[in-house]
């Protein structure tokens, strides 16, 4: 014991790595359950110095202590160990004492138990004897009770039967009560339970009476159910319940179908009436209402008293101009959803149910399906006609998205019907309506574009009509007028190119916005956009052909109309507008048309299945229109100048006129007008090519006039011997010059346009001169005027010889028509013209 105590002390005193190991080992021991057995046993078994270990070797421990510890340590160890031994001793003594007493009492108890068991054995024997007696008694009793038991069983059977009979007898009363409480379902259930029995025993008078009573009651019930069925107020759920019950009561299914549908019809019709009231009064609306009224009254005659409920809504509602989306919404929510509901419940009742039960044999599902289809088709047709009427009212093209959304919703909701009635034509009709609406919309857009174009033209016309710079202010002096002409003329019509660009830009923008609007029809999220029509025909025929191409054609055509309608008087269309339109058409030809068409094709990914108008055709048309307009412009402007010249020639007495001192004012006016036309045309058209001028064109004009040839002509005229000479010279000239077409087609440039105008003016001058007779001074005045024109007009034309030649003709002709042809000295003419 001592050694042990010392050992434990030594361990507790121990320090260094060994001690740590040991503590670790103890912990392991403590948690031994979680460790492997090998691991926890090894430190114990290996250490013989562990005072608490099982392999403790006191000798080794002592030796070890003696070897390792100093004296003082040994002393301490010893005292500590002694102290521990002592306490252990006392503990041991206490334990022994306590346990001794317990052993004593245990022995006593065992002895007492031995005695008690003996007594119990006796009692058990007694008990078994008693039990045997009881069994014997019991067997005897059950033998006696056997008869009574059989009787009781029989009685209870009779009781049950009586209960059932009671149920039967009470059935009429019960049914009546159910009827009172309107618990139809329970009544029907009860009746069904009794029905077979009653049927079976109907030969017995009493049962017959019950059966009759029941029948009467059930008839009443059926009557009531039918009543309820007809009652418009009951909900669809009630209704279906009614139908279910009636079916269970062996009502003829066909009649029920009809009634069900006619009832549903009256309700759906009230929806339709509501929708119709939303539509604005319509020419034939009253007639239509009459018709529907007749229909209603005929159904009413068949037995439905609820037809007057929709009548209240036939009064045109004040909110008739709700927008189309609301209208369609209402149509979808009220009509289409209740239609779907009707279809579902109908199918549930008559088709699905019937397929299970015995009704299937009677071809009920087919019959019911046929009726349903006819019913749906009829109502849907009316609904569609209403929707179409509403869509037709949608004239404004302001917000296309609304219409598209409405159509989308319309189309989407009809898909529900497709799901319910796979074979129905209704969705196709709906799609057709959408298609029609889309084509109609495209048409409306075309007309909107056209009216926009015409409005823009009116605007341009107004802009052109704002007072132009009066030419009078520039006509202070002849030369000044000419120099000032272009500068001052620029102020007034400078808006011409701006007008052109703003016009074409606004048209283009309008086209783009229309395309964007129309594009909504083919948007991905729209249900009907993946229909083949919207993928193919709508894009190519609808948008490209009947919208874009038609519009371009319209532009060309309306331009041409400007030439034709206004052609006679030339007054109604301002010439500047003609010029502007001509340029517009030319621009269309060069770029705009192909741009617009490319844009369209890109936006709509047009795949051309059917032949479409090629760009070149449109371009040719536009070019033709441009040409016509420009020709007409030349004609109109030429006419204006011609009129001035004609009046000036016709109204003067050329025989008795005074010696010319000035160029006549009308000539100055002609030059000014020509100059301003030149400026106007120059704003929109390029210069164009002209034949090269000789270095001193204006000088040369003089020399032509003062040439001896001219003098010779005049001289020849009054040489009696040779009247032929006059013709000869001019004929020779004509032989060598090309024929001049006066009103001919012009090219798209300024010089060609100006040449055309001047040709027309001078030819008029010539023809007018030929109709007059001149005196000496009349001829001289013409000489002066022609010289003046010569000085200023040559610069506008492509070939100055043309002007020379025509003026030459004029002077020549007037010399012919002169009574006293004495031409003026060239130098004098020049002086007069210089003076202005």
């Amino acid at each position, binding site marked *: 014991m001592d050694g042990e105590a010392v050992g434990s002390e030594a361990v507790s005193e121990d320090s260094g790595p060994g001690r740590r190991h040991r503590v670790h080992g103890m912990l392991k021991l403590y948690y031994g359950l979680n460790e492997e057995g090998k691991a926890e046993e090894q430190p114990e078994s290996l250490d013989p110095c562990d005072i608490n270990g099982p392999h403790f070797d006191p000798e080794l421990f002592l030796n070890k202590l003696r070897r390792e510890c100093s004296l003082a340590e040994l002393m301490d160890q010893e005292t500590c160990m002694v102290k521990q031994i002592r306490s252990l001793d006392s503990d041991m003594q206490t334990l022994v004492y306590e346990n001794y007493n317990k052993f004593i009492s245990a022995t006593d108890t065992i002895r007492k138990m031995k005695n008690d068991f003996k007594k119990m054995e006796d009692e058990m024997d007694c008990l078994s004897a008693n039990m045997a007696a009881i069994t014997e008694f019991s067997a005897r009793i059950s033998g006696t009770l056997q008869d009574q038991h059989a009787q009781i069983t029989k009685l209870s059977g009779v009781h049950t039967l009586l209960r059932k009979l009671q149920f039967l007898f009470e059935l009429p009363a019960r049914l009546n009560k159910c009827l009172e409480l309107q618990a139809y379902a329970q009544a029907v259930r009860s009746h069904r339970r009794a029905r077979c029995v009653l049927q079976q025993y109907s030969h017995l008078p009493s049962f017959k009476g019950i059966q009759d009573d029941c029948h009467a009651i059930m008839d009443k019930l059926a009557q009531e159910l039918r009543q309820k069925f007809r009652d418009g107020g009951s909900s669809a759920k009630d209704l279906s319940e009614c139908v279910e019950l009636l079916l269970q009561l062996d009502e003829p299914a066909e009649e029920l179908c009809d009634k069900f549908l006619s009832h549903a019809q009256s309700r759906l019709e009230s929806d339709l009436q509501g929708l119709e009231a939303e539509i604005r009064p319509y020419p034939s609306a009253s007639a239509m209402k009459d018709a529907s009224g007749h229909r209603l009254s005929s159904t009413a005659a068949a037995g439905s008293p609820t037809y007057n409920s929709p009548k209240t809504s036939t009064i045109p509602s004040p909110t008739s101009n709700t927008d189309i989306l609301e209208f369609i919404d209402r149509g979808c929510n009220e009509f289409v959803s209740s239609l779907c509901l009707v279809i579902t419940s109908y199918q549930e009742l008559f088709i699905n149910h019937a397929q299970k039960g015995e009704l299937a044999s009677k071809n009920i599902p087919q019959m019911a399906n046929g009726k349903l289809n006819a019913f749906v088709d009829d109502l849907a047709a009316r609904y569609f006609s209403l929707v179409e009427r509403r869509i037709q009212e949608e004239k404004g093209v302001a917000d296309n998205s609304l219409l598209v959304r409405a159509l989308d919703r319309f189309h989407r909701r009809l898909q529900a019907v497709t799901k319910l009635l796979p074979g129905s034509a209704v969705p196709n009709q709906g799609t057709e309506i959408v298609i029609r609406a889309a084509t109609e919309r495209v048409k409306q857009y075309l007309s909107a574009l056209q009216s926009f174009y015409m409005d823009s033209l009116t605007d341009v016309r107004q802009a052109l009509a704002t007072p132009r710079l009066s030419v009078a202010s520039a006509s202070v002096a002849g030369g000044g007028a000419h120099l000032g002409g272009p500068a001052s003329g620029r102020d007034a019509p400078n808006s011409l190119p701006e007008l052109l660009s703003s016009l074409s830009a606004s048209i283009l923008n309008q086209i783009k916005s229309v395309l964007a609007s129309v594009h909504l029809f083919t948007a991905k999220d729209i249900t009907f956009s993946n229909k083949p029509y919207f993928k193919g025909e709508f894009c190519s025929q609808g948008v490209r052909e009947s919208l874009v191409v038609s519009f371009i054609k319209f532009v060309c055509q309306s331009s041409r109309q400007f030439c034709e309608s206004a052609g006679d008087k030339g007054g109604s269309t301002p010439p500047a507008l003609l010029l502007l339109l001509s340029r517009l058409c030319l621009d269309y030809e060069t770029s705009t048309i192909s741009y617009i068409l490319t844009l369209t094709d890109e936006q709509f990914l047009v795949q051309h299945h059917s032949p479409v108008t090629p760009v070149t055709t449109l371009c040719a048309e536009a070019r033709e229109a441009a040409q016509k307009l420009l020709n007409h412009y030349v004609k109109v402007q030429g006419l204006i100048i011609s009129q001035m010249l004609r009046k000036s020639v016709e109204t003067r007495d050329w025989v*008795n006129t005074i010696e010319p001192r000035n160029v006549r004012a009308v000539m100055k006016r002609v030059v000014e007008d020509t100059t301003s036309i030149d400026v106007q045309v120059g704003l929109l058209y390029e210069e164009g090519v002209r034949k090269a001028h000789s270095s001193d064109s204006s000088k040369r004009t003089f020399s032509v006039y003062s040439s001896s040839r001219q003098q010779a002509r005049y001289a020849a005229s009054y040489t009696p011997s040779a009247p032929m000479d006059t013709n000869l010279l001019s004929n020779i000239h004509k032989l060598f010059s090309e024929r001049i077409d006066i009103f001919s087609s012009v090219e798209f440039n300024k010089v060609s346009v100006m040449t055309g105008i001047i040709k027309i003016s001078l030819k008029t001058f010539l023809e007018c001169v030929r109709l007059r007779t001149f005196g000496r001074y009349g001829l001289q005045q013409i000489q002066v005027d022609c010289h003046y024109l010569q000085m200023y007009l040559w610069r506008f034309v492509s070939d100055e010889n043309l002007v020379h030649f025509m003026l030459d003709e004029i002077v020549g002709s007037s010399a012919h028509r002169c009574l006293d042809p004495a031409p003026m000295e060239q130098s004098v003419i020049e002086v007069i013209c210089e003076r202005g």
Partner: protein
Amino acid sequence: MEDDAPVIYGLEFQARALTAQTAETDAIRFLVGTQSLKFDNQIHIIDFDDENNIINKNVLLHQAGEIWHIGASPADKAVLTTCYNKTSDSRVVSCAAVWRMPSDWETGSHESPDDSAHNPQTLELLCHLDDSAHSNAACVLWEPMGDGKRVISLADNHALLWDLQESSTQATVSSTATLEGKGQLKFTSGKWSPHHNCSQLATANDTAIRGWDLRTMSQIYCIENAHGQLVRDLDFNPNRQYYLASCGDDCKVKFWDVRNVQEPVKSLEEHSHWVWSVRYNHSHDQLVLTASSDSRLILSNMVSISSEPFGHLVDDEELSEGEDNHQEDKSKEPLKDSVVSTYEEHEDSVYAAEWSSADPWLFASLSYDGRLVINRVPRALKYRILL
């Protein structure tokens, strides 16, 4: 089937007035009046020898003044009217008169063709168609197919109906019609309708065409703004009584149904300058001749508005067997309004064109420089119309 080349005749003077000798139905004969302020004016009688393509001319002096308009009597070959300008005291006066050709002009020319130019005979004045109140005659119209006793002269804004008596030596105004309106109105041209028993007249002033009833001398219809500018000439369809052709300064030739004056029945715009004259062929009214100051003469085939819109109706019996196939080929071709041909022989403005009164397939045109051109309807067309 080569067409004959045109025949050209040159006058020494400028000329505007041309007419066929209406009463002459055997010889192809045209009358041309010259315009000269310095020399004596002449009337050239142009005879065309169809067989030999030769022109014979005779000249008669018209000393009264330059001729603006000439008209031949429908009854008497030798009688004609002229409208002419007379200058005196630096005043120009327009007059109209009835003349008779000397009886021996024809014989004279045959005897000495060389002398005729040098020593021309003079017209014999029958009577003046002027009275103090009305002058400035623009044109004189003979009663179509009449007996040469009635003429109408258009002077300023008056239409005067004259009765010629005493073998045309005396003229009296039997009735007048006056155009009322603001401004200085002046008839520029007119035509006496051959229909309705010659009781209708059509006149042109400025841009309007008016119809007159000669029995009451009142206006019966008016086509306002018939042309964009001046109306230059008119002609009646010889076979369709309500059809009228007009031409003017807007380069257009328009065809009217006078029962509906709102819109022309047809409008042509082939010329590139003013159209001065329009003439229906006397026998085949689909052929229309127009003359313009663009120096061109255009012959158009206006089938659709003619009296024979489906071609000449020929009885089958008339056709010989051999021609049957030929006929069928022709009938297959649709007849369309078209320009038959454009004649470019003139170098100056063409102011007058006339069909011959003797040969319906022949016509003459006159340009200002005095060139007279005689042409024929192309043979192909001629046969197509006939067969």
